[in-house]
């Protein structure tokens, strides 16, 4: 793993990506400790206060300190997106590898159904699921995971297919290894690299999808300090307090860019060509 990290750091994308991620991770881990005020403390006199020494990033329509809300909100935005993406990727990966391994009619059936599900765009699928499960951050995460699974299944299947045709898989089949051993010990380790790359990039989509769901009012619910919700609320007061809109938007962008850059950096670092 460390050797992978050093190779990632050497690449410009990787370096910038990791430093941004470190920033986001800092907010996620020590957010509440760093926050100067309680995120939900309303302050009548502080409404729409411009950024200054009292509120470093200004205050919103309730007079709540935006910097504190950003710090605390990190915890309810990024980890949720991470969990949703990796859950969706795991499910998708298993479907993809399984479908590639069994091949033939099973593969055809699974992939055709998978494509059918992909006919419904991610956001709409998430909306449908959230309206069923009920509004809220937890349900939004589940909805995003389910919406991501078909896409990941498709990517994994194509990677798994060419791993399936490798001779070492054929050798394993020839010597009578069980299907489970082949899928989990022979195929999956070699399919991991592209899965990791693909899901890292999808985390940035998850962060944005999560924010969009909150914007549409079905994701995180007030008074949660989730970034997407902060942007949605701030939009009404954009002309009195533009900072209330800009701060969370920048935060979402930083998180999304971080995962995008790391995804690309990983793609080069894990690229078999420079494995030597």
């Amino acid at each position, binding site marked *: 793993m460390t050797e992978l990290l050093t190779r990632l750091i050497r690449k410009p994308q990787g370096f910038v990506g990791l430093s941004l991620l470190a920033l986001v991770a800092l907010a996620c881990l020590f957010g509440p400790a760093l926050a100067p005020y309680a995120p939900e403390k309303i302050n*009548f006199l502080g409404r729409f206060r411009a950024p200054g020494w009292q509120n470093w990033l200004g205050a919103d329509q309730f007079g709540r300190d935006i910097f504190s809300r950003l710090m605390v909100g990190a915890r309810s935005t990024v980890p949720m997106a991470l969990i949703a993406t990796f859950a969706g990727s795991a499910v998708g990966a298993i479907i993809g590898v399984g479908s590639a391994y069994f091949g033939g009619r099973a593969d055809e059936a699974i992939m055709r159904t998978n494509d059918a599900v992909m006919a419904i765009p991610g956001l709409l699928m998430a909306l449908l699921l959230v309206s069923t499960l009920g509004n809220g951050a937890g349900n939004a995460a589940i909805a995003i995971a389910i919406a991501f699974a078909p896409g990941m299944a498709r990517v994994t299947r194509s990677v798994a297919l060419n791993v399936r045709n490798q001779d070492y898989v054929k050798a394993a089949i020839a010597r009578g290894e069980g299907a489970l051993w082949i899928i989990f010990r022979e195929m999956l380790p070699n399919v991991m690299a592209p899965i990791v790359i693909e899901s890292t990039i999808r985390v940035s989509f998850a962060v944005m999808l999560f924010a969009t769901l909150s914007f549409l009012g079905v994701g995180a619910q007030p008074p949660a300090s989730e970034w997407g919700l902060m942007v949605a609320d701030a939009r009404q007061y954009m002309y009195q307090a533009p900072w209330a809109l800009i701060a969370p938007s920048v935060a979402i962008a930083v998180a999304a860019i971080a995962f995008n850059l790391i995804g690309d950096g990983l793609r080069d670092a894990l690229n078999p060509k420079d494995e030597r």
Partner: protein
Amino acid sequence: MLSITRRHFLAGTAISLTILPKMALAEAPKRGGVLRMSIDQAASVIHPMLARVNPEYLVTELLYSNLTRLKPDMTVEPDLALSWEPNAALTEWVFKLRPDVTFHDGSPLTADDVVATINAILDPKTASPGRTNVGPIKEVAALDPLTVKFTLSGAYADLPVALTYLNARIVPAKVVTGALASLSTAANGTGPFKLTSYEPDRRIIVERNPAYYDPARPHLDRIELLVYPDRTAEASAMISGEIDLLLTTTPGQYERFVKADGVKALRTPSGQFLNINLGCDQKPFNDVRVRQALALAVDREATVGFVAGGYGTPGNDTPLSSAYHFYKNIPLKKPDIAKAKQLLADAGYPNGIDLTLIASDQPATRAQLGVAVREMAAAAGFRINVQTMPHATYLDQVWKKGIFYVGFYNMQPTADAIFNLLYTSNAAWNETRWNNSAFDAVINAARVENDEAKRSALYGKAQDMMHTEVPSVISAFFDLLAAQRSYVEGYVLHPRGSVFRLDMVSLGAGAPKRT
């Protein structure tokens, strides 16, 4: 037995109609032109008896007419009915209809149409929201083609006001007996405008009804209603001259309009309010001390600041705002955290109490009030968790059943209407289940009381009882906020929030030429 003032007051006559046009306008309004108005959500139901939200009330007001109409000062004026007479006991009312009025399809308006319409509204199968709001009507009959007699189940002074209710628009009898449902897609009323095109999600177009009973009105040739779901973008459209008039806006955008040129920001105090309903039949709110403790924890001016953006008036836990006729000016309840804590302790909650406050997601102000109250009440020991949910789920599982949730209501025409709607034991929407017989007695007495002074004393007593017993915490009334281009004339922002009178509107100098 009836005092002269009383008769004059109740028996509205055609006289007042003729006065109005001269007094209000300096010189005759310009005829013609196209008005573009934005509405915040699609008017998906244009069936007059089933309309539920403001855009739908607007469309049906353009296409149909009631017997009577509410003026901005909440008093009544004639519409299809020219005059009306109660009997001494206020249990029977006779309405005289305006002669030679025709529906859009040319068929004449007769008393039979009024009878059929009222009966349809009262029929539970129609499921019309107006059923419980048009007054205690037992029976309605046509005495002659232009006269209708209402027989009530009890004395009721406010029938003319009740008949201004938004669903009580008169439709042709042949439609009621034929296909009532056809009104969902086609319109045949007596209103100032006729329906030209109906694409609910995008645009609704109405054009002048040449056969309207008042030749002077409407002034406009055509009105286009456009759906703008996003308030911020809608405000930008108004400032850039895309739209002439908008139905409602938020405090945030209102302040933009105040500064923008060519735009006139409109504001009027109203009786629209958010109430925090306390289930008085279940723990812990069956104990009045808990309710009073919560009422003392809330800083009313602050809620006006936070939730109404400063555009509102603080509430005193009674549903009547200063815009109401029988409003009693009780000194505003000041927050008193120490006393609230003491009351909670007496009620058996020395170290505070955990509660879940439910707020549906429409309108967004419900959750904002929840958040504000949660912070304020925390100091007094209330540990409140605010939970939001989709409006449909809220209606299905929480409304009228929950013990602690946020309600939202437009201003009603009369004090009796609002009390009977929400707080009497047999109220249509008895949310708090307060079921206070003393309070019911006061309201019923006021209902039948003719004497103005006695009636206002009774309503005053009712307000005092709610002020002390706090069945629900009402901390803020909202001003209605809207905006128009400066060249729009004759539009009055009505405190009821769902009356528009676009037939009075005309386009002055500087209006863009629109085909």
